[in-house]
């Protein structure tokens, strides 16, 4: 293929309610932060164009509801994701302990072809609340290491700490994942062609 096709990366953000998923996305895409809490219902996405290693890509960032009663996502939503971002609140131990469950849920629903190498990124958010911190950086890091060296960032959506860096890593991981998928599909199509002899051979053969 001569032309580079336009890349759209699908990124999904998961985590307990109130950890700051919506805030992180808003900070990254719109550079805005609000102290107000408004529960996300269902899921919604924002897009952002970024340059990753000299390549312009469009990131479609899906924000989801942390509250169970607002979750209405089907498998189709998870499928085709290129990266999954797990967020917890460093001041709320419970939100850290939920990471495992979020990860399991994602893997089952998305059924990625190569689950062991599917890219996750973990964000410990609200690090600006230093006095209330309950989960140490070490503890979070060691969990991430255990799960196959998941990149970990300590962020604050409020003070825009590490948000840009974290999302750049997310974009890069997603792009890599997308490429891997592409290779897989090209390979698969090549095999399939022989399989379907009644497929038209004409058309532009360039």
């Amino acid at each position: 293929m001569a032309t580079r096709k336009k890349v759209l990366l699908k990124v999904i953000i998961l985590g307990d309610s109130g950890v700051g998923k919506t805030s992180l996305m808003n900070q990254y895409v719109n550079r805005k932060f609000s102290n107000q809490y408004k529960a996300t219902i269902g899921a919604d996405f924002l897009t952002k164009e970024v340059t990753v290693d000299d390549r312009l890509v469009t990131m479609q960032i899906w924000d989801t509801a942390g509250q169970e009663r607002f979750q209405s996502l089907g498998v189709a939503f998870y499928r085709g994701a290129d990266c999954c971002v797990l967020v917890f609140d460093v001041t709320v131990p419970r939100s850290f302990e939920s990471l495992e469950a979020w990860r399991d849920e994602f893997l089952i629903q998305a059924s990625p072809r190569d689950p062991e190498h599917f890219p996750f990124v973990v964000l410990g958010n609200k690090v600006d609340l230093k006095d209330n911190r309950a989960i140490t950086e070490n503890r979070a890091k060691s969990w991430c290491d255990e799960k196959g060296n998941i990149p970990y960032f300590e962020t604050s959506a409020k003070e825009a700490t590490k948000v840009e860096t974290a999302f750049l890593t997310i974009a890069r991981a997603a792009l890599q994942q997308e490429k891997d998928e592409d290779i897989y599909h090209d390979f698969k199509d090549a095999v399939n062609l022989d399989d379907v002899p009644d497929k038209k051979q004409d058309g532009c053969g360039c």
Partner: protein
Amino acid sequence: MQTPELQAFEVHPIVQWRSVPFHIQSVELNGTDLLVGTSQGQLLVYDLPEGSVGAVPSLRLTKKDFLKTSRKPPISQLLAVPELNILLCLADTYVHVHDLTTFTSLYTIERSKGTLLFAADLHVRGMPQADTHRLSETRSTLPVDRLTLQLCCIVKRRFFVFEVGRDEAKHIKDQPLPDTPQTAVWCGRKLFFGFKREYDQVEIETGRVVEVPTESTGSFDRLAVRLPNNTFALTAERDGRPVVIFKDIEGKPLTSYGIQWEDWPRAIDVYGPYILGVTDKGIEVRFNDETSKLMQLIHLDSPQFLVHGHTILAASPSALWQLHPVPYDQQIDSLLDVNRFVDAKKIEAAMPGTPEERMKRRYNMDKAHAYYEFNRKKHFKVALDLLKGIEVSPATVLRLYPWLLPKHTPAEGVPGAPQLTPQQKQEAIAALILYLTEKRTQLYKFDSKAEAPDEADKRKKLMSIVDTTLLICYVRTGSSLLRSFVRVNNHCDISESEKVLKSADKLEELVLLYQNRGLHRQALELLRSNINKTTPDPKTMDEEECKAMAQRRAKWMHAMISHLQNLKPEHVGLVVEYSSTILDIDEKQGLGIFMSKDFPNVKTFPRVPIMQHLQEHYPHLLTQYLEFVVTEWNDTSREIHTALALSYLNAVLKMKKTPPLSSPERQRLYRFLRTSDHIDASLIMRRVASAGDVLVEERAVLLGQLNRHAEALRILANDVADPSFAEDYCNDNYDPHDLDRRNLYMVLLEHYLRPASGPPKTQQALTILGKHSDKVNALKALDMLPLDTKISEIEDFLMAILTEREHTRRAVAVQANLAKTEQLQVSERRIAIHSKHFKVTEDSLCFECRKPIRTHAFAIYPCGTLVHLHCMENESTCPRHSTRGRCRLTLN
């Protein structure tokens, strides 16, 4: 190219001229009248009854004098306009107007001289939106009195527009054109013209010319045809190849694709899902969609054009054919016979019917298609997507996988269950995984509130089937998702899953599944059996093997330990029972199960059962455990403290010879007895007493705890050499407000000064008097002293009394002042506490439900976390800091 096998149309030759000196030039179908214009100026009228198929029409009338000229020019165009009961006819470069019933000439439009071709359309005066044309379905409802027939005649590079009536034709306008058009068609109040190199649209009223873009630059036969619903078909080219594209009345494209042809068609028509095109080869019948798939090629000898009335006709110079559409269901059946499902479904989509009928037709076709894709083509994903689309039950889908689920062998047979290669099986499983994960999401998201109980049962059963199968799929593909799957909320059938996981040696996953479902005993039993199985045996294994085995065992042990430590207090029975497995291998790790600070549940385990367990089976570990809970977790229960005292005591009693009090064993016993307030003293006392006359000091302490001070002091005064014990005892137990304890010093003095046997111990008595003058009755004490006591000997005592009295007086004064100040401080603090407040604003949210607190009753934890009272789950643990960390006061 593939030969189309389908018969979409039956073809019947109905008119065939062999040895006739003229040929067919034009054809028109008006109701049941079939009008044929010949190359020699005659009009032939046949009867073609509706519903007749393939029958030769009878010739009703031959009008030789149709044209009022002797030159016999060919009749090149015919158009019936039943609304005005007229027939338009192009011959000799004039447009002639005839009566449609009698076919007699009404008049000739003189100004049409030179016409090459014409296009006509009915307009509704003053209602452009109601304009119509020959094929319109709305034809019968037109307001006849307002209809006007618009005629456009092409005369070289010019067009003329007339308004045609029964008596005369009014010239409306004429306008030059860039070239001579090859085709012309009305579109509303505009005209489409096709030239050699382009299409133009001309607005009649203004004369404005706009090019209609078709991305075609070459020169070819341009053709514009008006189809139903104001759609226009134009010939065009794509990459130099012939196509037909579709435009709306404004000339805007209607589809992104074009219908591809082998050659540019010279006539076009549409019928149902098909588009028909006349080419040199005959008539091509293609799907009218982006595939342009050729469905039937009707070989005819030089067909020229099509006529569409109550039936479809094709015409050549010497023949007329009827194209009779084969009923759709027959077409579908013949396609299904050769497994052309996609084609069949396209035809089905064109069939009429109620939604229910269509759904039923669709269901059967998709199902058959799915089986074909699965069994024959091995396109597993395509097959499952089809079955998903028609919402076939998962149980039915699973019947496609008899080799995966031996238990669910197809009861109702699945047609042609195939033999799959291992590679194909993997692909089939991969497709199934996608299907099942989608199904389970649907099932889990289902709103169970609106469900009848039996429905709910059915759904649960289905969930169990789906999840169990999914588990099997993960096992069969060796997917690492298995580990995640057993941890998420699932309905896997336990006994089935057990079998599958065990036979695949996925024991860790089985443990996780048990754990997930709260089947702790099963989980622990499995862990235990694995620990046992991985016991290194130096007799049968070499050193390396032993080491490897020990490593594997360590992993299982670790799993068991953390499982136990995560259990809830009510499962302490299990904790105790299974701790033995670990304790028997490694006492340190085993004991660690009960003494971990990392797992919050451990601290909440009931301790008595653990203590009893250790006492019974691991008595040597008991002391360590008890010491830990008493010192680290500040246990204050009577059972634990008594047990600890007993274990200290037993350690002492076990020794051959009673050690001195200074020995470490006695020291820790003595000290614990002295400091603990939670010991069952009489029980310990009995044990001590049963040991005989030893442990005097301990006995005294215990007597003290039992409030038997007189006995205690008798022992201390008489049997203990070191007087400091007696004094310590008094110090420990003295209480001026307790009737039993306030005269301990006096009792001791009495023992010293008036012993039951032996000489009085005046010296000891004087020491006590000197130190504790404030705790004795001075007069009584003096009275007890022997008469020969010298004043100098009691000088200390007397001085002490005096000083003490003086001191007390002053101390009371100071105390009075201090009390006053304290009272002030307390009331100040009270005011401060009362004025402490926490603001609940509009933005204050309940941490549990995340809704605003508003005016609901609420609770606040020390750290400031707010919850609604009705949302509060646990008064003593704040939800923010639930399991770890402490909840600290941060508000002022």
